[in-house]
C-alpha cells in the first residue's frame, strides 16, 4: 500500500519550541465566523504588549486531542485571556457552548498548581455588556470580569490595559495606535486566508501580528 505524506507540526512550548511562559498569553476566545474579529483583536493586542499569543489553533497535527493541546498551551503560558461572550443559548435547541468556561477552569487549575507566587498563572475574563455570567458561573464573581461592548476597539482597549500592567509587558504605543494598526493586521490575515483557507498556520498569523505592531518613537 502506498504511504501518504502527512504533515506534523511541533507544538509551541515543547522541545526545541519551548516558549517562555512569562511571555506567553493563552487566548481562549471563540474563533468561528461571528467571533473571529474579536479573536484576532486579542491575538494582536497580546503581540503589541510583547507576548507570544498561544491558542488551541497553534498545532497542525490531529494526532493530539484538542483538550491535550489546550492544556499544554495553558500550562506553558503564565497568562490567559478568556472571552465568555459565546456562552449563551443559540440554535434551535437554544444550547450554549461551554468550551470557554472549561478552558478557564484549566487556567484556574494551573494557577492553583503553581507553587511559586512569581510564576502564578494570571487571567483576564471578558464578558459582554448585559451578560448573565453571574447566574450560571457565580464563582467568577470574585474575579472581577471585565465588560466589553463587543466592538474590537473596546476589546483592544480592555485587553491592552490589563496586559500592559503585567510585569513582563513591554512598553507600547497608545491603544489608539494599536486599534489603527489592527486594520492593517486584518488585511494581512485576509491575505493569509486567501492563501491557506481556514487553516492559516499559527506561526504565520503570529508573524503577521508581529510585523504590524506599531513601533515606539
Amino acid at each position, binding site marked *: 500500500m502506498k*504511504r*501518504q*505524506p*502527512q*504533515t*506534523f*507540526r*511541533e507544538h*509551541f512550548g515543547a522541545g*526545541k*519550541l519551548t*516558549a*517562555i511562559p512569562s*511571555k506567553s498569553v493563552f487566548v481562549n476566545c471563540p474563533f468561528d465566523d461571528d467571533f473571529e474579529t474579536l479573536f484576532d483583536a486579542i491575538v494582536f493586542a497580546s*503581540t503589541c504588549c*510583547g507576548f*507570544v499569543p498561544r491558542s488551541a489553533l*497553534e498545532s*497542525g497535527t490531529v494526532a493530539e486531542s484538542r483538550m491535550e493541546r489546550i492544556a499544554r498551551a495553558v500550562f506553558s503560558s503564565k497568562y490567559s485571556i478568556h472571552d465568555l461572550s459565546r456562552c449563551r443559548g443559540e440554535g434551535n435547541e437554544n444550547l450554549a457552548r461551554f468550551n470557554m468556561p472549561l478552558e478557564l477552569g484549566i487556567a484556574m487549575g494551573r494557577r492553583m498548581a503553581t507553587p511559586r*507566587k512569581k510564576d502564578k498563572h494570571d487571567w483576564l475574563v471578558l464578558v459582554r455588556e448585559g451578560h448573565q455570567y453571574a447566574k450560571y458561573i457565580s464563582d467568577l464573581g470574585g474575579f*472581577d470580569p471585565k465588560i466589553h461592548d463587543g466592538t474590537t476597539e473596546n476589546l483592544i*482597549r480592555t485587553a491592552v*490595559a*490589563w496586559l*500592559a*500592567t*503585567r*510585569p*513582563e*509587558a*513591554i*512598553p*507600547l504605543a*497608545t*491603544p*489608539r495606535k494599536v486599534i489603527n494598526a489592527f486594520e492593517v493586521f486584518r488585511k494581512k490575515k485576509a491575505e493569509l486566508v486567501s492563501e491557506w483557507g481556514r487553516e492559516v*498556520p*499559527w*506561526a*504565520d498569523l*503570529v*508573524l503577521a501580528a*508581529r510585523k504590524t*505592531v506599531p*513601533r*515606539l*518613537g
Partner: protein
Amino acid sequence: MNSVFISYFPKTRKQAEALAWELERLGVSTWLPGRQVSVEAALESQMLDAMKEARVVVFLVGPQISASDWVQREYRAALERFWLDEDKVLMPVLIGNADQPAFLRHALSIKVDGRRSDWARVAKEIAKILNEGVPAKKNRAAIRAAIKEQTDRLDLIEKQAYALRASEVHKIV
C-alpha cells in the same frame, strides 16, 4: 483640582500621608484613595476622576509587597489616563529596595529610605516637576530604553514564530 494623586499599598499608607502633608505644606493639593471616601464603588469613581485631574501620579511602592487588586486597578487607570494625556507624569517613589512597577520601569523614579525626613525632599522634587516638567534629558533616555526593549521582544516573538514555522516537516509514515 488635585495636582498629585498618591497611589499606595496598604502597608505604605503612613508614608503616603506623610508625603501628602509635605506636599500640601508646599501648596500642592493631593488625593489619596481611601482618605476622602471609603465605600468601594464611590471610591472607584472618585479615584478615576482624581486620576484624570492629577498632573502627577505618584506610586508609593514598599519592598517585597505585591500590588493588591485595588492597586492594580490604579495602575490600569493611570496608564489609561496617560495614554489620553501624555503630559501627565507617572512617578514611582521606591521605599528601601522596592522594585519599580514593571509598567513604569522607564519612568523617572525617586528612591527613599522611608524616614520621616525623606518626605520633605520628595515633596520638593515633585513640586519642581509640577512647575518645570520632567527633565528632557531623562525623558529622551527613557524613550530610547523603551524602544530597545520593544525591538528586542518583537525579535524574540519573530524568532519563536519562525522556529514554529520551520518545525513543520513532511514525513513519510
